[in-house]
């Protein structure tokens, strides 16, 4: 037991290499954590960050290994990031459209789209995106010009993520859109009477949240793995929910929260290597953290309350 804990600590913060591993795990958790925090703020239950991340990684791979192979880095890197955001926005937006036009709960549609996205990735790497050698079900390696600039083994995506955290803090608390988002999250009926359309806000929130998650996917393929394969994301989009809730849906607090969970992921990998404790126990920790985070707020009535409520038809 103590051996496992020691491995967890030394593997996450015990050395420079361990810190590098922690920061690498932190980057996608930070971006997807922001995506979830934004959505939950608006009372939109985006459980689909996982699928949006994969959709983003898929689109980024299409651009990097098929569409713009010879392009210079100055063009290719932004194009890859943009493609990732677009892919995620498409998946998030689809859930938003289904909710706005057909009344389909985004909880269920985003979960189902997670499965669809992972199947699409499998389809792509067994088919049109498979490496030229056709030996393994994975994509061609990204050309060097498509890879994010890196400092040692930490890619620039982390820097972008930090900027995004500050930007979203401003967006949520300092802009008209942020005001409408919070209004719909806190009191959809009141917001409707104030002339805000909850459906429209939900749609743009889902698309924006999806774009962020998709960006995280692009960062993973263009910053860490350099190619697309099955199992690219081992539940990052679900961990993101724990990250966002622990941060109390405050974009700036997502930074330390993501760092904590990043350390947990890096440490768990070391724990599995050195002490033979399966890394899946981190999911138990994540679930427990979610319950702890929301459990502590029992009695203090806070946060969005749109959950599961069909809005009154006459409102």
């Amino acid at each position, binding site marked *: 037991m103590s051996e496992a804990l020691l491995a967890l600590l030394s593997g996450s913060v015990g050395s420079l290499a361990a810190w590098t591993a922690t920061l690498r795990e932190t980057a996608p958790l930070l971006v997807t954590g922001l995506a979830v925090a934004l959505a939950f703020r608006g009372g939109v239950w985006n459980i689909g960050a996982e699928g949006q991340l994969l959709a983003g990684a898929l689109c980024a791979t299409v651009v990097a290994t098929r569409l713009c192979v010879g392009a210079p880095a100055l063009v290719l890197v932004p194009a890859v990031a943009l493609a990732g955001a677009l892919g995620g926005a498409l998946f998030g937006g689809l859930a938003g459209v289904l909710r706005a036009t057909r009344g389909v709960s985004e909880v269920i549609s985003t979960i189902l789209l997670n499965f669809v996205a992972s199947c699409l990735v499998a389809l792509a790497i*067994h088919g049109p995106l498979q490496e030229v050698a056709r030996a393994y079900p994975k994509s061609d390696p990204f050309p060097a010009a498509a890879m994010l600039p890196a400092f040692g083994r930490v890619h620039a995506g982390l820097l972008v993520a930090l900027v995004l955290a500050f930007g979203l803090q401003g967006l949520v608390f300092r802009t008209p859109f942020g005001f409408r988002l919070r209004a719909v999250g806190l009191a959809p009926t009141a917001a409707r009477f104030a002339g805000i359309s909850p459906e429209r806000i939900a749609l743009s929130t889902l698309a924006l949240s999806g774009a962020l998650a998709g960006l995280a996917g692009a960062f993973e393929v263009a910053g860490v793995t350099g190619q697309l394969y099955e199992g690219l994301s081992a539940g990052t989009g679900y961990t993101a*929910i724990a990250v966002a809730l622990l941060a109390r849906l405050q974009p700036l607090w997502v930074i330390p929260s993501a760092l904590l969970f990043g350390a947990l992921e890096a440490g768990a990998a070391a724990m599995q290597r050195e002490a033979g404790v399966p890394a899946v126990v981190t999911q138990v920790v994540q679930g427990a953290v979610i319950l702890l985070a929301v459990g502590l707020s029992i009695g203090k009535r806070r946060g969005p309350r749109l959950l599961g409520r069909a809005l009154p038809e006459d409102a």
Partner: protein
Amino acid sequence: MEALIEAALRLAAPLLLAALGELVIERAGLIDIGIEGTMLTGAFAGFVVAVASGSALAGVAAAACAGVAVGGLFAAFTVLGRVDQIVVGTAVNLLALGATGAGSRALYGGAPPSAPTLGPVAQGLLGELPWLGALLFSQTAFLHVGLLLTLAIGFGLARTLPGLRLRAVGESARAADAEGVSVPAVRILAVLIGSSLAGVGGAALSLAQSDSFTEGMTAGRGFIALAIVIFGRWSSLGVLLASLFFGFVSALQFRLQARGSGIPYPVFLMFPYLVTLAVLALATGRARAPADLGRPYAREGA
């Protein structure tokens, strides 16, 4: 055709049990997306106990108990703590996935043994009846229990006092409370009953459809059960029909896959989820959801 329908019924059984469980919970006014994790825990607990005891029935009982335990956790947070149901459900799913994965590796080291399974209810003469033999008697008891429960839940909800109270709590918790019905008690009981059904539904996967437990073996069936409740318009008969539909879709998927049509396999894997999405988009049953669905209830001033 007969084989296809037989497979459809077999694949529908776990969905039916889980969806009936979710139906009971939702009619009491709660959304439990943790049903996926509840099923998975049932599949795991059922498998472990069946292997250890050598009895599939003991496994099924354990699955029901495991479902109750998971349901208790969900109810404690959502009913007593009035914490967001979606958030707690997500946490339950993560906990279940991690705990069953770690548990199965710790117990079996990645190579789980074979469990005793629940066989067809009747072999011999009954099983050889044309059509009926293949369709009903060659099925496992999971299907028959599901069919009986469909009737029992349908009757119970519509015609009995406890059923009336449960519906009242789901439609208007405040009015039910004013009538002297204990909203927390009814909701907790509904979650425990529903979760035990979901646990048994999970056992149908590890003790009938296969004889083994694999990590994450529910693969979204709990979420499909959620969709089934919506598609079935919150009625037990509707849930039965929707479950049969999804069972048929899965059976068709396996049939086409086995035929080797040259279509890559991920297309088939995607099939049930796409069908579920399409069905949800086409079924506009929003107006029929219990009015207080998803709303935590607190007395004024409480």
